[in-house]
Every structure is written in C-alpha cells, then in structure tokens.
C-alpha cells in the first residue's frame, strides 16, 4: 500500500536526461512520422516513465510497481521537445484513493529544461489488489 505521507509530495530526479535525434527518429519511425524536427506529443513518456519509476521506487513511498497498470495519461506541452534538450524530471503524487481493492495513484511528472517547464504529464497508475 502507498504510504499516505507520500501524497502531495514532490520527488526530484537526480539525473539530467538529454534527448538525441536518434531517439526522436526511432519514435517517429514507429508512427510513420516523416517530420522528425520535433518529438511526437507522447515522446516525453520515454523520459518520464523511467524517471518516475526510479524516483518513486523509494521503499518509503510504498508503490508496488510490479502490479501497476496504466489507467490514463495526460500531457500538457508548453513547447515541443527537440534533439539536444536536457531535462530534469520531478514527480509528484497528486492524489490517491482505494476503490474495490485497487489503488489509484495520480502521478504528475514535470520536465524542466534550464529551469523552464517544457512538458507536464499526469499518469493514473492502477495498482491491482
């Protein structure tokens, strides 16, 4: 079970993640997207999935990643991601509820480049009971 003290807290990632053109190219190739000058709108999941997983794997938080299913996803894109961007990721546990034995955890992850917010993402993680 999630530690209730985690709700509302923001956890900072340690690493700076730099986006390469080849990563954008690979994502575009899956979608048959020929314009690779900017990343597709959901590309930031490549960064936030791994970063939020690392950030929220702290045992004090109590999130059981092995039973997580992705319920929904939202992106707010201040500006598109391009090759060469370097991001710091922070993840906030925005809300938490238990329903029918499943836990519903809303995690917001923010990507900042040079202290400017580029993309915010919200993921509802359903921890199956």
């Amino acid at each position, binding site marked *: 079970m999630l530690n209730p003290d985690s709700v509302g807290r923001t956890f900072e990632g340690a690493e700076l993640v730099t986006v390469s053109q080849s990563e954008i190219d690979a994502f575009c190739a899956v979608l048959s997207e020929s314009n690779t000058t900017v990343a597709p709108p*959901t590309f930031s999941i490549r960064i936030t999935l791994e970063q939020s997983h690392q950030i929220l794997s702290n045992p004090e938080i109590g999130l059981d990643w092995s039973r997580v299913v*992705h319920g929904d996803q939202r992106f707010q894109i201040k500006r598109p991601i391009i090759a060469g961007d370097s991001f710091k990721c922070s993840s906030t546990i925005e809300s938490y509820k238990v329903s029918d034995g499943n836990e519903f955890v809303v995690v917001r992850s923010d990507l900042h480049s040079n202290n400017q917010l580029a993309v915010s993402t*919200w993921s509802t993680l359903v921890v199956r009971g």
Partner: protein
Amino acid sequence: MIAVGTTLEEKVFFVDRALLKAYADASGDQNPIHQNEEFALSVGLPNVIAHGMLTMALVGKYVSDWAGGAAAIKEFSARFIKPVIVPANQKVDITVTGKIAQVSGDQITIELSATSAGVTVLAMSEAVVIK
C-alpha cells in the same frame, strides 16, 4: 472556419508484434506483456497486448496530421479502456476517429476515440491544438 461538431476523417493504423517491439525500444517500455505470449498468458491476459501508450501515440499521429504537425499540440489526454490484443503473425487494426468539440480563437479541442477489432480501446480522449 472549423465548425463544432465536424467529424474528422477516420484513419486505420495497423499493429503487429514487430511494431510492438519497435515501440518497446523507442519508448523504453520493455514490459514482457507486450512481447512475450507465454508471459502474457501467465498473468491472465488473453494474448500479447499492445502498449496503451502506443495506441495513444498513434492517435497523436492522427491529430498531428490533421493539425499540420506535432508542434501544434498543446494538450493531449486519453483513458485506456480495453487492451489491444495482438496475436502472432497478425496485423490488428487501430481505427481512430475525431470530432471538433470546441473552437476558441485559434485553439481547437478535438474529441478522439480508438477501436480495435470493433472494441473501444481508448476513450475520454481529447487534444487541444493551435491551428
């Protein structure tokens, strides 16, 4: 002028196991339920399933194509309702539709949905684009 209620042209994408592998590598999501049939069955799934985020990425491509590029998309959301089931050696459809829900200045809100094999897999989906 784009009228509220206008239906956008339907588009069909095709997904197979090779595309799931390519998306796993491109996104970093190597969860075996998207690649390994034995594993998927062992955790109670009917077969290998597509990443929900792959379906969402394809819907994003649909919006990008309509809006004239990915840079036009300011907000994008979706709920994953049912899994997209991807049997071996088959291409399954992801059929995307959209409707103009709101127009406010240069900001347009599109309501989106996706089905696979006739089943709604993605809903409560909206994109806000600048056009």
